[in-house]
């Protein structure tokens, strides 16, 4: 319900300034430039300060949205970011990568008749301001409990657990397989959507709080979960993500120039291959690039290929625009940057030259049939609609599965038939005593904020366990 107020002139939603499409399509700088103080305060004024705010129930970690927005309106930026920290340790990340249209902003009362409050933009503004000009002051921390927690994986869910439990006084060590922390925030999401400097500063914030970080540590190879308990850890949180690339299993998929999205994005983002040869890791620079799939990972891959100098980049997807799982804003950005959409199209095989390099592919046109178990209309091939498409590089972004490295080396950890860890959705408890799990290794590929929500639930449960027992 809106407050009773004198009717003022209606302020429209303040657009976030961003780089022009024809400029940004060839650079890796962040696309949105961010609100100024003035823009942020103006946007904050649009919030109706509902008594029963629906936006909060739309947020997976229940940030007190009206409260932090009110503080922005009043110019109390430091207090505002602290209000967010009560529920969310990674606001600079979430403000950028959450699908707000399906969450907080989708639930905003203003969305019913017009445009919702720019909650994500405001969250981003206030956390960026704190990072760049903040006091550096840390939130208060509980007395040390003497309990040790091992967090496996430094993606969004692991970082959330580590932050929460450190604040509660536990001694937390994060184990990361890569040489850099952040998980998908670092290897998956490109610089132009989430500058890596922001991720590292969030991790640095956790380290200043007292969490320890061990990179280059592949749990399941160098140390097992049981050995972590032997080393004196009281609880283990498994947040290793869904890092197993899926391929399409069609002929020619091992030709040179065909990447999994994981490989393509890891080369570009983590290894900074987009700066080759300043950085040593190479990456193929395709002229005609095909990207398969239509989720955020596909958009990220396509936009990366465009920035690496491709002439044409095509998203090839077997369903129609309506079923595309990527965020609306990402699809829009991709379109603006000149990415073409080949919808209702499925590849049947890749074609290569004598050196084993991909030169093209054969596709079939599809039409939509009855809805399948996912509720989306099933694509059905149209007979005789085969056609060829030229491509000298392809990225396969049709989803990821559960990486078995950790789970197969841990006895007593029950998995479902897809290899994901079975965990209580309320608490994150697994079938193994003292072990919690959350994020993509439980749900399969989902979103950053859902992984953080799972981390939040698990950290509450781990804290209870460390205080009262299983």
């Amino acid at each position, binding site marked *: 319900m809106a407050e009773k107020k004198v009717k003022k002139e209606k302020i429209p939603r303040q657009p976030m300034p961003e780089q022009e499409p024809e400029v940004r399509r060839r650079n890796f700088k962040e696309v949105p430039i961010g609100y100024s103080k003035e823009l942020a305060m103006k946007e904050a004024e649009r919030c109706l300060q509902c008594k029963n705010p629906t936006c909060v129930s739309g947020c997976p970690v229940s940030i007190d949205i009206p409260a932090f927005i009110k503080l922005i309106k009043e110019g109390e930026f430091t207090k505002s970011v602290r209000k967010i920290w009560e529920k969310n340790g990674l606001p600079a990340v979430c403000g950028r990568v959450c699908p707000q249209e399906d969450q907080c902003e989708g639930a905003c009362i203003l969305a019913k008749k017009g445009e919702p409050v720019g909650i994500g933009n405001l969250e981003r503004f206030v956390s960026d301001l704190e990072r760049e000009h903040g006091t550096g002051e840390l939130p208060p921390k509980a007395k040390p409990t003497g309990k040790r927690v091992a967090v496996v994986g430094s993606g969004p869910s692991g970082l959330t657990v580590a932050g929460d439990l450190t604040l509660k006084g536990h001694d937390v060590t994060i184990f990361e397989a890569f040489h850099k922390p952040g998980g998908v925030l670092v290897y998956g999401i490109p610089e132009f959507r989430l500058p890596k400097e922001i991720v590292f500063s969030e991790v640095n914030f956790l380290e200043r709080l007292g969490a320890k970080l061990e990179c280059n540590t592949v749990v399941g190879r160098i140390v097992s979960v049981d050995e972590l308990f032997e080393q004196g850890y009281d609880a283990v949180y498994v947040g290793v993500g869904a890092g197993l690339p899926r391929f399409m299993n069609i002929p020619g998929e091992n030709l040179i120039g065909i990447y999994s999205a994981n490989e393509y994005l*890891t080369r570009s983002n983590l290894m900074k291959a987009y700066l080759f040869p300043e950085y040593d890791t190479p990456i193929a620079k395709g002229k005609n690039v095909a990207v398969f799939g239509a989720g955020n990972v596909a958009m990220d891959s396509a936009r990366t290929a465009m920035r690496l100098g491709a002439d044409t980049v095509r998203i090839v997807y077997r369903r129609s625009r309506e079923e595309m799982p990527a965020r609306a804003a990402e699809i829009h950005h991709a379109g603006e940057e000149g990415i073409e959409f080949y919808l209702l199209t499925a590849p049947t095989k890749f074609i290569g030259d004598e050196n084993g390099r991909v030169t093209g592919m054969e596709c079939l046109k599809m039409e939509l049939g009855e809805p399948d178990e996912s509720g989306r209309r099933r694509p059905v091939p149209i007979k005789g609609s085969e056609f060829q498409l030229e491509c000298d590089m392809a990225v396969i972004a049709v989803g990821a599965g559960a990486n078995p490295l950790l789970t197969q080396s841990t006895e007593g950890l029950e998995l479902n038939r897809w290899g994901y860890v079975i965990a209580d959705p309320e608490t994150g408890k697994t079938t193994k005593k003292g072990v919690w799990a959350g994020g993509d290794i439980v749900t399969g590929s989902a979103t950053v904020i859902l992984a953080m929500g799972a981390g939040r639930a698990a950290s509450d449960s781990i804290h209870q366990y460390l205080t009262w027992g299983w």
Partner: protein
Amino acid sequence: MFKIIRREEMAGGTVILNEIEAPDIAVKTRPGQFVILRAYEEGERVPLTIADSNPDKGTITIIYMVVGKSTAFFRSLKVGDTFLDIIGPLGKATHIENVGKVVCVGGGTGTAVLHPITRALKQIGNHVTTILGARTKDLIILEDMMRAVSDDFIITTDDGSYGRHGLVTDALKDILEAEKINQVVAIGPVPMMKFVSLLTKEYNVPTIVSLNPIMVDGTGMCGCCRVTIGDETKFACVDGPEFDGHKVDYDELMKRLASYLEEEKIAY
């Protein structure tokens, strides 16, 4: 940071040995496993097999051939210098079993990979014949170490400058003709492993090879190292690096290894 405590040059400085402080890896590693190394912030991740380990000293040993920018930089590192990142042990360990008579075939730096496997095969009671091959005498590495863990020992050079004149497959063929061999392990350049496998297939001798595709993460999350084994795509970093030599698509592997030839030249 991982400190180099010993450095040796072999094969006229084209092959380098580094013994490195990495206590956790030294304790865990088993024959057949590998590490991924990165030397500096702008560096790439380079997979190299663990040639030896000393858990008491807390060290692992790597042996690599200088072939491009990264390995050339590794060569420039002196005792006391460090690697920025070492990740491991990675990959599956070799399945070591007493099968009877085994022939171990090594070529190039593959010999470094073969050494701990040969030693383990011998320790468990196999009769081990080793064949080391090289283009020419100067390129042979680890001769004494391999000799010490073998019952019979043969060296071949393509140009006849040392040992038997000819290819490893010539020597292997003679052995396969003469007696029943239970297993062959071949590690070296891809063409060598291919031709050894073609030969042993004729004699129906189970053959293990260790593949060296391009890798990025080494933990199964990217599929860069995918290889075709029989009808299946496998990831060498988690499903291997060892595979049934009779099922590997060597031609595909060789082509994929050439993916970045142009870029490698630019970088160097």
